[in-house]
């Protein structure tokens, strides 16, 4: 009798409890909903162009972006992609080596007390808003570049890359550090037992062992740089072209959306093309994130 009453209590839970558990489940699913929503609504707004006058060849292979031209309206995104890639790649040239070196230092060489301090500093660095970085690009880096290199404008690839590398460093450092910490302590002990110095442990044991995680860190840095909008909008100098040197001003995919969406009439073709650009960016960042996740998880299985 007693046991039966307990069992029935378990199966007939109060309604409030079931409602709350339902809410929790719904909350859990919300991120799927939002990702699907992002895809859906961007597709919806750009559908008129994508399923209408979408010119595959022009969109992906032409460098001519003339959305407001009177004679010939063109929507080629290659120059914008070149702008995005040049800025991103140059920023990674600065950020990846420094970021990984910093991750090595904080994870392996730093005294524990100092490690906490550095981690907090990195958090602060990550917290500086992108528009403040953009402001710095305009008022500090811009004149600095003009004065030290004698170029016509300091708003160019180099400027944006410098700013972007500072912005993506915190992410690279913290993910890289996680990857290094994930290497089992026994690896280090074994190497130390064989008489390896810290340098040897770092380059011959940790580097191979944490390779995937470190690659993921770099990749997430790329994703961060690729998607950055405000700072790049302010720092790149707004000129659509294929860059030939690091002192050329360019324009990126993100900056184009930010700069032109406000001026394009709602529902018009230009407006739809800008949403198509958004879709393009979404797919790029999605691919990068999935790849990074796969790298991290692949390593998790092996060790």
């Amino acid at each position, binding site marked *: 009798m007693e046991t039966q009453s307990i069992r029935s209590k378990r199966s007939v839970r109060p309604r409030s409890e079931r409602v709350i558990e339902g809410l929790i489940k719904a909350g859990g699913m919300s991120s799927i909903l939002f990702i699907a929503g992002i895809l859906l609504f961007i597709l919806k707004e750009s559908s008129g162009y994508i399923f209408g006058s979408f010119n595959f060849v022009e969109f992906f292979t032409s460098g001519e972006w003339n959305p407001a031209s009177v004679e010939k309206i063109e929507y080629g995104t290659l120059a914008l992609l070149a702008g995005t890639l040049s800025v991103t790649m140059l920023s990674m040239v600065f950020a990846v080596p420094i970021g990984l070196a*910093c991750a090595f230092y904080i994870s392996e060489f730093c005294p524990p007390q100092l490690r906490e301090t550095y981690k907090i500093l990195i958090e602060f*660095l990550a917290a*500086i808003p992108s*528009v403040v970085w953009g402001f710095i690009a305009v008022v500090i880096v811009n004149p600095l570049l003009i004065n030290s290199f004698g170029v016509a404008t300091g708003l160019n690839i180099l400027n944006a890359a410098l700013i972007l590398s500072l912005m993506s460093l915190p992410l690279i450092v913290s993910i890289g550090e996680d990857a290094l910490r994930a290497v089992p302590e026994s690896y280090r002990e074994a190497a130390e037992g064989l008489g390896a*110095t810290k340098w040897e442990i770092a380059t011959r044991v940790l580097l191979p062992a944490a390779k995937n995680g470190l690659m993921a860190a770099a990749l997430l840095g790329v994703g961060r740089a690729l998607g950055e*909008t405000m700072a790049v909008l302010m720092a790149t100098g707004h000129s659509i072209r294929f860059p030939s040197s690091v002192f050329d001003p360019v324009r990126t995919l993100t900056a184009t959306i930010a700069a032109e969406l406000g001026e394009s009439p709602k529902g018009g073709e230009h407006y739809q093309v800008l949403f198509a650009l958004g879709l393009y960016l979404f797919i790029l960042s*999605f691919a990068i994130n999935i790849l990074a996740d796969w790298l991290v998880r692949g390593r998790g299985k092996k060790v």
Partner: protein
Amino acid sequence: MYAPNQQLINKNIREERFKSILSFLTVIIFFPALMIILWLLIKGGPALSWEFIFSSPTKGMTAGGIFPAIVGTLWLVGLCVIISCPLGVLAAIYLSEYAKDNHTTRIIRLCILNLAGVPSIVHALFGLGAFVLFLRMGTSILAASCTLAVMNLPVIITSTLESLQAVPRSFREASWSVGASKLQTIRHIVLPNSIPGILTGMVFAVSRAAGETAAILFTGVAFYLPFLPMNVFDQCMSLSMHLFTISTQVVGVPDSYSYATALVLISMVLVVNTLSVAMRWYFRSRRKW
């Protein structure tokens, strides 16, 4: 006597050199940010005054203060937290307490990861399509806050999840063994013990939301408004947007004005961030396990 051979000495020298290079590179990361903050203080500090903070911009945004922008930012951030926190905490409870190790969970985690990685301008497009147009919120504080909330969701989920999982499993087992249901355990044992961590995450999310510009660009923020927002369906100004406007769109803004604006924005963000760090330290030192 034992004499260290040359090879060993070289090794040690290399070791030291390696270490100093790494520590130098680490310091280098923070150097620019430090200089920037100092520079902002030097250039913007003198222009700061109560009048600057509590008055409206005048003369086509080249003089006056930034009060409407500060108020707008407070509206946006406040509403964003109200929307995203319950949702984020629910999601984290699901992942920590209910989710089984299966395909759905994996997809949820991947979605959270992607939500964090989506460029902010894409979030802005989503906000425009979904909240402003589809849900007919118009360009309003509500639409902008919803967009910010979606953007900040991964931050809140991750930090909440971390603090939920920091509660030892034995706490839960003890609660179950005296007959508490799963939900009762969550309510009376897991949540009270992880509230500090959840709060810390929320504060961190606030600092993120306060500085965001791109996501609110087309969803509810105006370049200039002569009045303060009265309810969530009004548009508003925002500090971050205001800084963008005066440093790129408006001609003839005196340096001190834009520096001071940047200084106010960055201090707001850093103060909130410091609060989050301090809270984490305080709660960690008081943790019972």
